[in-house]
């Protein structure tokens, strides 16, 4: 029953989206009063219905209803409840339903909250959203019905990939999806503004909160995903340049560029066409990301749907939306009035360089990600990996850091070179001091990590410079946001550089009682014991760890886990977090001689990577709160003016 109700809700939501599209077209071209009044309720109804469908799917998973095909293929009655629920979106059909659910709810939110746009632009925006939604509804209802039944119902399900049974993975896909879908809303704003030719500061101010929100969620999702891969896969790395990681990085890069250019448009009415173009590109990247992950074209754990028909369907959607948006852009870009002029040496100038460098990185990541797929079309099997991406994006990213440090110290419109040099004194001093301190005892760490550490110090000083001489309590929230976000990048960069420069590794066969050194730690294997979990069994190694020879000992227990449905084994690393880094331990296989393989890492300041990511997201959130609040005040002022 629940499954049928879900399917019915999905069909009704699709119908609402179609209606929404018709109403929007009508409002844009004739503006009849009753149509104008109908469009908001219809958008809200669509959001409500699709949320209902998602809720039904979650319920079916919670009840382990084995007459639903999707539950059979991705769940098991013995699974903990959290992973039963997460199972609802830990698969192809469910994740696509989640995608369109977030889209529907976001559309309803635009209909309820957006008061700054004029009626026609708002309707065109809502219409563009409905158009995106219609394609995804068609995809779900025609090619991947999540509520399909199976008869006869089997006794139990096939289980969920154990790698996916982790709190990190239960939460980070929805977080990323909110980011992806938030970008699609920004895209709809751009389409709406193009349709009604209303590209200007008002439009930028309306779009900015959506870009900011999407960007915060993308940042959180990428940070959480990176930490998940780090502790769950047991390989000790935090970024693999896996195509699926790139699928989330590319929209983030585009959204970061968009975020900065939207500021130029809102504040100084410049970069009009460029901002619209970036909105189109950012959305294209989130669509390409969806396509890469969901079409089964990739070599990845995440790409679980190996089905050419679905791949072709998403590819067609991709072509229609991106092609359509680019065509609209090409037709209308001539009517977008030229914005304000600015001097090359100005805040705008620095933001243009920031945009260009981000676009260059984006281009390289895109080429590196798609190249193997294109080559496969010509019968050449190759894979592009970490060496390529590190070598090409690393130096450009460091160059970007320099402009990031200088940008906020520049004035809008026009600035003097001498004044900038004066303001850069302290950041440059920070860079120099770090370099002088590091060079003597860290000469062997390589050029990039050394440059990374020194630049991180310079950027940290430059980031807090805009707060100097200000009354901190009267400093606007969005200035705080910028400062914290930029400081977060410096912290993250320091963590990355430190990890690649100073990590110590020990790989041994450990026998009970023998001490092994890694970094400042001594590790002894005390013993092994069996552990039983809800749907797995494991062998845990108890490691007694001391810092130096005389420190107080503590216990770490890495596990080797075995899951029976489906039969799989995984490693559970054990990690000790200290202020100056992490001790990371992994248990390997038994050795015939009676020992156990142990892999130990000492990673100084590695936690800074994710701490920085969290700071960046926090900065975005503060900015968002500041902007929304200020927007409210403005609307109220306009009302009484």
């Amino acid at each position, binding site marked *: 029953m629940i499954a049928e109700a879900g399917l019915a809700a999905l069909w009704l939501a699709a119908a609402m989206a179609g209606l929404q599209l018709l109403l929007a077209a009508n409002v844009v071209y004739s503006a009849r009063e009753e149509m104008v009044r109908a469009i908001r309720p219809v958008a809200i109804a669509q959001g409500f219905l699709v949320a209902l469908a998602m809720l039904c799917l979650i319920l079916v998973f919670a009840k382990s209803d084995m007459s639903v095909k999707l539950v059979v293929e991705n769940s098991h009655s013995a699974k903990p409840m959290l992973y039963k629920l997460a199972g609802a979106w830990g698969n192809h059909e469910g994740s696509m339903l989640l995608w369109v659910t977030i889209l529907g709810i976001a559309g309803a939110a635009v209909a309820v909250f957006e008061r700054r746009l004029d009626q026609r632009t708002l309707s065109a925006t809502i219409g563009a959203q409905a158009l995106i939604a219609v394609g995804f509804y068609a995809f779900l209802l025609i090619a991947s019905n999540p509520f399909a039944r199976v008869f006869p119902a089997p006794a139990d399900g096939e289980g969920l990939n*154990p790698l996916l049974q982790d709190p990190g993975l239960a939460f980070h896909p929805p977080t990323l999806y909110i980011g992806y879908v938030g970008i699609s809303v920004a895209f709809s704003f751009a389409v709406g503004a193009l349709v009604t030719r209303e590209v200007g500061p008002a439009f930028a101010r309306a779009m900015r909160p959506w870009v900011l929100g999407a960007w915060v969620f993308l940042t959180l999702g990428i940070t959480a995903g990176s930490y998940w891969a780090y502790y769950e896969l047991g390989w000790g790395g935090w970024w693999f340049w896996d195509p699926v990681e790139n699928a989330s990085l590319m929209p983030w890069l585009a959204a970061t560029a968009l975020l900065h250019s939207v500021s130029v448009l809102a504040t100084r009415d410049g970069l009009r066409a460029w901002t619209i173009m970036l909105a189109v590109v950012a959305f294209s990247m989130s669509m390409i990301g969806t396509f890469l992950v969901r079409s089964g074209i990739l070599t990845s754990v995440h790409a679980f749907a190996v089905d050419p028909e679905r791949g072709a369907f998403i590819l067609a959607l991709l072509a229609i939306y991106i092609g359509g948006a680019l065509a609209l852009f090409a037709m209308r870009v001539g009517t977008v009035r030229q914005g304000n002029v600015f001097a090359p040496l100005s805040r705008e100038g620095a933001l243009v360089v920031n945009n260009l460098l981000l676009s260059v990185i984006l*281009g390289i990541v895109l*080429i590196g990600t798609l*190249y193997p797929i294109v080559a496969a079309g010509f019968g050449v099997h190759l*894979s592009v*990996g970490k060496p*390529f991406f590190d070598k090409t994006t690393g130096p450009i990213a460091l160059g970007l850091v320099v402009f990031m440090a200088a940008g906020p110290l520049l004035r809008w419109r026009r600035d003097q070179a001498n004044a900038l040099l004066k303001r850069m004194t302290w950041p440059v001093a920070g860079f120099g001091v770090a370099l002088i301190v590091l060079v003597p005892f860290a000469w062997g760490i390589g050029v990039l990590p050394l440059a990374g550490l020194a630049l991180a110090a310079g950027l940290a000083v430059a980031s807090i410079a805009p707060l100097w001489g200000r009354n901190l309590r009267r400093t606007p929230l969005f200035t705080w946001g910028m400062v914290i976000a930029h400081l977060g990048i410096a912290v993250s960069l320091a963590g990355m550089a430190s990890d690649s420069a100073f990590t110590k590794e020990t*790989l041994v066969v450990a026998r009970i009682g023998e001490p092994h050194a890694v970094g400042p730690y001594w590790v002894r294997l005390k013993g092994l014991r069996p552990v039983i979990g809800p749907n797995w069994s494991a062998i845990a190694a108890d490691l007694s760890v001391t810092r130096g020879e005389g420190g107080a000992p503590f216990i770490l227990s890495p596990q080797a886990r075995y899951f029976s449905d*489906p039969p799989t084994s995984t490693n559970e690393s054990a990690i000790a977090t200290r202020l100056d880094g992490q001790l990371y331990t992994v248990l390997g296989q038994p050795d015939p001689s009676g020992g156990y393989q142990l892999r130990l890492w000492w990673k100084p300041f590695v936690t800074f990577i994710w701490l920085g990511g969290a700071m960046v997201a926090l900065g975005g959130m503060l900015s968002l709160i500041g902007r929304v609040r200020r927007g409210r005040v403005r609307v109220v002022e306009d009302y009484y003016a």
Partner: protein
Amino acid sequence: MKPKHQRMWLAGLAVLAVAGASGLALSALKDQAAFFYAPGDVKKQGLPLGRAVRLGGLVQGGSIRKAADGVTMRFVVTDGTATTPVTFKGIAPDLFRENSGVVAEGQFQPDGSFVATNLLAKHDEKYQPPELAGKLHETKSLKQ
């Protein structure tokens, strides 16, 4: 500067940046892309020396040996037409086993053996790296 000129400048810069990015990416791809090899490819194409590559195939039954230090192991990868001996130091992935698929990242040595820095095995019973699936399929059809 007139608005039109500024627009031209910005467009020029953007084109330059995109061209630069593509150039950089393509030139790096030429010498950095890790190409995918099966043992049989080496006979046809020669040894790719001095370059990080991926080697894929099946772990030959009965070929896994551990060295005395307990963390170095040797095994043989086969694609049905040829074999390559592989040395790997580290903890093998959980589903690494004999007669099962594996993709090794590393470098070929002048003697035709392979030193792996990383092993990618099947993640679970359902999953197999597509590049490997394609390769095995290809060798099968070649034999017929």
